[in-house]
């Protein structure tokens, strides 16, 4: 009975939900208009597709982070996890392991790392913020120990039947036009959207983040729901990191630094509440698009690197402010 009530009251994807994202959408549209007026190339098909590809790295991880934050958690280790997964997969590839196997093992590793974070945060009762801070260093340290800080180059691995598929996923274009990274972002976003809004797991995620006590009374296993959120994030981190490995062709000791903050920023800009229980993947997608548009637009305007850093910070605050003001008005 309790579960039915939760299901009935879950945030629905309809005009109301779309309207609730109006604020951040307004911010995105204003940004787009602003940059297009100053440089019409911003709105060119080529640039839009490039932007789509550019935001896919953070966008894919942000899907998982949305689940986590709605469910009442964070994962600050995603950047280091990103580095560790791509490093291990890269090392396997250059040492003769089949590319396909290296990819599958990388994804499995991502899920396992997510599971470790999840178990520590839930059953271990360590706040997820603390687990993330600790594991951020553990995964980064492990990556550096494996490589000795030497970059691993896979861009010239050729003798493997899986290399073409690997290259296509990271660098290829669907119909010769749409970057595969963007295609995969949209597919994964669609799957995430379905899970969050159409399945019982989605209901449980909102319940656990919104009111853990009520969720417990309703018979939901808080620990497993939250842990699964970490596993989803881990798998998505792995997918994102392997796509980047394909695209860039190498992995260095610095890769992934700061990604956790970019992800969280995209999710929060998108309207997901920091303390859990509320949020949408539509918002996250727009949030990632806002950040990508900012970065891309400022470079197109030839704005100096120092100004870019300052302006991006200000626009993030403004985007969230517009969202809050719009919600308050509604």
């Amino acid at each position: 009975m309790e579960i039915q009530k939760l299901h009935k009251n879950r945030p629905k994807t309809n005009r109301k939900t779309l309207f609730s994202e109006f604020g951040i959408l307004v911010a995105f549209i204003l940004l787009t208009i602003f940059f297009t007026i100053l440089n019409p190339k911003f709105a060119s098909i080529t640039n839009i597709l490039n932007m789509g590809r550019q935001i896919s790295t953070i966008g894919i991880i942000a899907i998982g982070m949305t689940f986590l934050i709605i469910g009442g958690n964070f994962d600050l280790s995603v950047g280091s996890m990103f580095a560790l997964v791509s490093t291990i997969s890269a090392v396997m590839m250059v040492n003769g392991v089949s590319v396909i196997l290296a990819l599958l093992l990388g994804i499995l590793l991502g899920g396992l790392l997510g599971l470790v974070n999840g178990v520590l945060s839930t059953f271990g009762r360590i706040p997820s913020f603390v687990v993330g801070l600790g594991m951020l260093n553990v995964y980064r340290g492990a990556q550096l120990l494996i490589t000795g800080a030497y970059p691993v180059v896979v861009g010239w691995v050729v003798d493997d039947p899986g290399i073409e598929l690997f290259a296509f996923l990271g660098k290829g274009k669907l119909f010769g036009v749409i970057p595969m990274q963007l295609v995969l972002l949209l597919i994964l976003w669609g799957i995430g959207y379905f899970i969050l809004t159409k399945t019982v797991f989605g209901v449980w995620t909102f319940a656990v983040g919104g009111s853990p006590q009520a969720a417990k009374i309703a018979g939901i296993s808080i620990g497993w729901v939250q842990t699964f959120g970490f596993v989803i994030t881990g798998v998505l981190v792995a997918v994102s990191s392997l796509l980047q490995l394909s695209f860039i062709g190498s992995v260095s000791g610095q890769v992934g630094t700061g990604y956790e903050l970019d992800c969280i920023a995209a999710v929060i800009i998108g309207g997901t509440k920091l303390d859990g229980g509320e949020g949408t993947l539509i918002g996250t997608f727009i949030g990632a698009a806002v950040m990508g548009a900012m970065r891309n637009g400022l470079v197109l305007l030839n704005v100096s690197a120092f100004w870019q850093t300052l302006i991006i910070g200000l626009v993030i605050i403004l985007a969230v402010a517009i969202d809050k003001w719009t919600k308050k008005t509604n």
Partner: protein
Amino acid sequence: MKTTAMLLATVLFMLPLVACGESTPPPSEETSPAAPAGEVSQTPETEPETEKLNIVVSFHDPTLPWGQPAKTAVEDAAKEFGVNVDFIGPTPTDPVKQLEQIKTLYEQGKIDGLAIAPLEDKTLRPYIDELSDNGIPVVTFTTDSPESKRLAFYGQGFESLETIAYELTKKTIELLPEKKGKVAILNSIPDLESLIKREEGSKRAIAEYPDLEYIGTFANKADFQDCYADVEALMTANPDIVALFAEDSFTTPSAAKVLRDMNLNDKVKLSGYDMTEEALLLVRDGNLDILVGQNPYMQGYLSVKALYECLTEDIAPVSVEVEAEYATPQNIDEFLQAYNVSG
């Protein structure tokens, strides 16, 4: 149950510490100094263990791609001279953290000699002087602290960095059929002193060509993906760019790949730094026109050698201006061989 869980957790957390302790190999016959000829070798129980010198090599950031040859050199030198070497540095680059790391090791008595690539002269100079005053020999490499009490420098000094950048930029501009159009500089760590010097050199060269328009410095994040995205956006916004001058080993391969992926190699000239495996292969494939290497291997090796000789034979270190190397598609084979790169 709770007590058992706590005990298990404690044991699990102690395991990495035990593993770290065991990972330091005990001195072996290969690394210990050999007994002089004619002496009877003693049994392990009675033979006094020769204490190895502890040389600390502090780099900008040990994870940076351009530091890897120096790290290899330091490891090779450690084996050759039979010394302990710690290759350290802050991640990411931070002069204060660099200072704190060295201080910590010194206060633990773990520094017999220091080779340092100072991130910022003003921050590190007082401590270099303090170590020197306390009898610790200090040499610098890659970046210098010329006013300090360091004994020698191995690399190209700031003036040389600026000059090398000036010459590299000029060589690149000379590859252009017409010396006119837009140009841009790419710098992933714009507050690093050595990269500031390179940028100054590039700007000085650009200024000598009145028909070239310098539109700015871009790609300011030490991340390959972000550098790629920034250069891609730059080229989309400015299809009339005729040359790019990349100042470091993040922007160099990233820019080369953008030009390759956008089929602009014939139209846009690109110069860059640091002979990483990837950069050398990009030169080979025609995606990068001129690549400069500052021979970090030799810088790292000479630093350790100088400190060893100073500590054991009282030989005063002497500065060496390590020559820069230039790789182009015409001479790339010799560099691929020298750096043992195949791809």
